[in-house]
């Protein structure tokens, strides 16, 4: 599948933002985070900016961005519609929660309930994002059980790393947060590892024989394409550049998204102070860059059934 930059930016940025927002909504009311308004301001900015940036950038690949509001109407059947609706609805409790924290330096009581609600809606939004891909039957590499855990855990991981960095920069490095970051990163790594193992070892359902229904005659191969040039289908579904470099890109993604953040989070916990804060910040930046590569691969490695009509042997 063609990796559209706007969709990659949206899913990674909003994943991190919702991860952070969910953690604020859960840990804030429990009193586990600094309660002052400056921390709140920085934390909510760090959550809302990528979410909003992601939502806006996701409209860039639309043919008619001015009609984007219509996308919230079909929540009965469409995961994309549900995602859009959840994303917008999340702003309401999240905004109220931020108001309590930043405006009144309160994150308990009724404000805490807003936080909890925002956390649940954040998780639901990321779940809906994942389900958009999970429900596409023509793309076996998306339509499998590993996609939803991947999206949820990667969002949690990047959110935790950014929260740990932010708390660290307040010169109050937090041991529990560093541990949470290590656990989340390890889990996300395991889920991604299993996803890659799944796509490497699972045989494709579709073949040129099943796509044409001519399999009973023997091997089916494309003799002549319908057109001499490329068309929309070949550009959108038949993207091939990354598969050539998949092994190397996976190593880069694993180093940046998982290995380095794990190491740096452990370092941050061990060092403490400003050195620890810097380590936590680098961990968060590295993870975000790594998840970008991971998401690019997620698209580029996905094979669509329509390519079977254009010479692919399996998809």
């Amino acid at each position, binding site marked *: 599948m063609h990796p559209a930059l706007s969709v990659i930016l949206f899913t990674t940025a909003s994943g991190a933002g919702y991860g952070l927002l969910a953690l604020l909504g859960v840990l804030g009311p429990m009193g586990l985070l600094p309660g002052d308004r400056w921390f709140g301001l920085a934390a909510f900015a760090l959550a809302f900016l990528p979410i909003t940036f992601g939502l806006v950038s996701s409209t860039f690949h639309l043919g008619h961005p001015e009609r984007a509001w219509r996308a919230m109407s079909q929540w009965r059947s469409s995961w994309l519609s549900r995602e859009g609706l959840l994303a917008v609805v999340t702003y309401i409790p999240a905004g109220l929660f931020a108001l309590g924290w930043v405006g009144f330096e309160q994150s308990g009581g009724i404000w805490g309930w807003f936080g909890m609600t925002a956390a649940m809606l954040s998780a639901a939004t990321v779940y809906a994002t994942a389900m958009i891909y999970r429900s596409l039957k023509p793309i076996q590499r998306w339509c499998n059980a590993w996609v939803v855990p991947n999206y949820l855990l990667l969002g949690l991981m990047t959110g935790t790393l950014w929260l740990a960095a932010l708390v660290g920069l307040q010169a109050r490095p937090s041991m529990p947060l560093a541990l949470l970051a290590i656990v989340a990163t390890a889990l996300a790594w395991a889920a991604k590892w299993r996803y890659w193992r799944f796509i490497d070892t699972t045989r494709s359902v579709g073949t040129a024989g099943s796509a044409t229904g001519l399999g009973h005659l023997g091997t089916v191969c494309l003799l002549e394409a319908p057109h001499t040039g*490329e068309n929309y289908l070949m550009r959108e579904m038949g993207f091939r550049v990354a598969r050539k470099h998949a092994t190397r890109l996976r190593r880069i993604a694993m180093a940046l998204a998982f290995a380095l953040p794990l190491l740096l989070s452990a370092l941050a916990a061990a060092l403490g102070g400003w050195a620890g804060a810097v380590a936590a910040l680098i961990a968060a930046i590295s993870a975000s860059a790594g998840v970008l590569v991971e998401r690019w691969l997620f698209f580029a490695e996905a094979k669509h059934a329509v390519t079977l009509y254009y010479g692919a042997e399996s998809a």
Partner: protein
Amino acid sequence: MTSLPASTPAKQLGLVIDLDICVGCHACAVNCKEWNSGGHMAPLTDTAPYGADPTGVWFNRIHSFEAGEGSAGRTVHFPRSCLHCAEPDCVTVCPTGASYKRAEDGIVLVNADICIGCKLCSWACPYGAREYDHDDGVMKKCTLCVDKIYNENLEEIDRVPACVATCPAGARHFGDLGDAQSKVSRLVAERGGYDLMPEMGYRPTNKYLPPRPRQDRAGCTGAAAALAPAEDTSQATGILRWVDRMLSR
């Protein structure tokens, strides 16, 4: 509304494509382009149509496959267009309600006025039926010539999709596949018509008729198994007899 009709439409208009007959002339694709360039989903934009790298929107694409190995292999021309599925995910994934399946006849259409061009429907279609119009910013697809098959300004004989009307070989049939007694349904039953990629679970309305068994031996066709040897010249008379005798020396 992108939810599917509550009950399966009684009428399911669709195509039956005979892979035994199709000669791969692309006339159906060309006439489709011609009709629909001015039809319901118009325009079907072409970019640089006379340039070095032309590209554009078509609803019908004709692939040619080779099936089987060696001397048993055969060429099969394979027209590919929207199958107007009974359970089309391209409709249900649409976030705006632009994609819909008509309750009255099962035709799957796009409302170009509210399509946002997110392209998700084209991802959800395993058959590649939908092509995005970069110029228009909306998704386009086969309409089963909805503006032709019900058009009372046309003679009744012309109220069939453009691809069916133009096929010079008679490889395309149009009718109600929801009615078991219709001509197309009987044809499907008789010839073992099948669904493409049934494992996807989309339950396509359009059916494909398989190529008939190969007739590669003389006996299969009713002709003499072998021709009589050509060496026997005893019947020759006149000048031919003289030529035969001279050359036989």
